[in-house]
């Protein structure tokens, strides 16, 4: 078990570096470097930059040096000092901008994952056990529709319905009075009351595909001989189904986190932009639009890292569930 976890962590390390390289490339893609952009933007505001400060910055990020040195400096600044670079648009360190939003993104994605599971599991079981029933067809059809509606369209639709028929805006994560308030129980409750709309929007597609996966897995398992064995023991039918085939089908279900999580984080980003949630999405888009590359790159790095960690945790969870992995 420990060996398995250690191996998975070892696996995750090269993935992390690959992600960091991609993020770094994205930072480097726009023409010019951070300092030229900075000088240009300050000049446009009629300010000049102190040449000494400029030189200090140049050193800190290794600008002008070979690309791999720049990468190395960027990485070590992050690891050693928690310094993700400077956002020229906000004129603040990136680190002071991203953590709060990353936390909210993480919370939102996690809640959505729980929502997706809570819906997909029972519906998938129902669809498999009552294969070809009216309910099964209905869920299959709903699932196809769920897969076909892009997140942002669903968000627009809900916003339109909210605006048109209930006269209220459905955007945001907090009511105005809590927007700037420090965290408190009341603020948390307020957030929960806003949370369900983005959760439903982000979770629809994932729920639809997980229902289909659970259904297919369970249909496979229902045909296996151990189900007959359980029945032959004298177990009531619902226990036969829940204790055996469902339990076995749970393993591939859990392992879907590996791709559901990246999809949720993707969906979170775009939904947040439409609903203007105070999460990473809107700020990332804005950073990309204004080519505030350290900010954008840091978001991409951290979102991907979150995904890697999530996948790692799902693998550990899978090992806990499946003795064949745990004891190999």
């Amino acid at each position: 078990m420990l060996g398995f976890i250690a191996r998975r962590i070892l696996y995750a390390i090269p993935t992390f570096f690959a992600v960091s390289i991609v993020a770094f490339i994205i930072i480097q893609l726009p023409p010019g470097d951070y300092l030229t952009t900075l000088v240009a933007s300050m000049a446009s505001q009629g300010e000049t930059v102190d040449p000494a400060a400029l030189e200090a910055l140049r050193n800190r990020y290794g600008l002008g040096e070979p690309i791999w040195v720049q990468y190395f400096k960027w990485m070590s600044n992050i690891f050693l000092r928690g310094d993700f670079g400077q956002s020229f648009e906000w004129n603040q360190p990136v680190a002071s901008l991203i953590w709060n939003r990353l936390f909210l993104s993480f919370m939102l994605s996690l809640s959505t994952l729980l929502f997706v599971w809570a819906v997909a599991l029972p519906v998938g079981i129902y669809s498999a056990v009552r294969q070809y029933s009216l309910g099964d067809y209905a869920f299959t059809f709903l699932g196809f529709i769920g897969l076909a509606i892009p997140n942002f369209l669903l968000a627009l639709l809900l916003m339109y319905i909210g605006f048109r028929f209930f006269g209220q805006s459905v955007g945001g994560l907090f009511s105005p009075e809590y927007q700037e308030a420090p965290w408190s129980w009341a603020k948390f409750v307020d957030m929960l009351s806003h949370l369900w709309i983005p959760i439903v929007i982000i979770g629809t597609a994932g729920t639809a595909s997980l229902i289909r996966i659970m259904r297919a897995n369970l249909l496979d398992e229902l045909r296996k001989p151990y189900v007959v064995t359980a029945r032959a023991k004298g177990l009531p039918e619902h226990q036969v189904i829940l204790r055996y085939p469902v339990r076995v089908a749970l393993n591939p279900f859990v392992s879907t986190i590996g791709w559901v999580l990246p999809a949720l984080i993707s969906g979170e980003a775009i939904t947040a932009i439409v609903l203007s949630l105070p999460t990473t999405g809107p700020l990332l888009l804005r950073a990309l639009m204004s080519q505030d590359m350290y900010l954008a790159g840091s978001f991409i790095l951290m979102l991907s890292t979150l995904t890697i960690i999530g996948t790692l945790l799902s693998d550990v969870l899978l090992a806990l569930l499946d003795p064949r992995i745990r004891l190999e």
Partner: protein
Amino acid sequence: MNPSSQELLIDIRGLKTHFPLDEGVVKAVDGVDLSIHRNRTLCVVGESGCGKSITARSILQIVDKPGRIVEGSILYYRQSGMGNVEVIDLAALDPYGAAIRDIRGKEISMVFQEPMTSLSPVHTIGRQITEAIRLHMPLSKREAKAHAIEMLRHVGIPQPELRFDDYPFQLSGGMRQRAMIAMALSCNPSLVIADEPTTAVDVTTQAQILELLARLQAEHGMAVMLITHDLGVVAETADDVAVMYLGQVVEFGTVEQIFFSPKHPYTRALLKSIPTMSRRAQGRLDSIRGMVPDPFNRPQGCPFHTRCEEKIAGVCDRIAPPRITLEDGRDVRCLLYAQDIEMTPVQDAA
């Protein structure tokens, strides 16, 4: 050795279990008659696909959907204390009801063909056995565990305390089947149905498992219904034999009757296909002339007439033979004996 002199346990009459599929109805079991007696071993033989497993599953009402018992009765003579016998028609019970569930695993239990796939891959064998025990016996968790370990020891699993926490994939094929048998025996059933319990294990283990079953049968005084297509096994373990062909029992009698004076042409053909009784490995049943008919297109008349060497033209392909009880007490479904009964008394060929 007249079977009817023994205490009757299960009496199947006219059992039909069909699978209504889109392409047509598969008549997997189509009029099976047989009986199982206390303390005896019944072997069911027949080619693959002739309905042995479905007959066995019908007894416990665990036929896969869309299969269904459409006709016939399965009378179960249940001993209910004080020497009283209660008769239950298992075929009439609701497959999901409490009545049949109370019998499954407790009074009638099953050992399946493939121990690897018949045990759950994600539960320890200990857990799978204690589940059956706790379901049917008023035992605490700890007592159930002790009992399960006792059963594992009883079926010859070394270090049962350790094996209790093993998963099926950690055990060898033979050990797995032993665990399966331990599970089947854990509630001291009056009938154990073993559906080809040795096809998935090697020859040595096969012999051990059969010996184990024979020993346990003697010790526990239960009845065993052993499904096999190995006539060598039948000769060694059976008290009674049911020979099946295309969803019917074509001949049913004691092992002596079947081996020394087979009456049905199919039984004879089967026995002829074994070169010598001792060379069991070659005693497979697939060397009879012709092909098993398609389950959707069952032949008219006697189902065996397409392959029968003694068929009476114009008769066997028209009249479905009824069950005929001969003087020595055996049953046979063959029109050759329909005349015998009317005209001359049957002579024992032995």
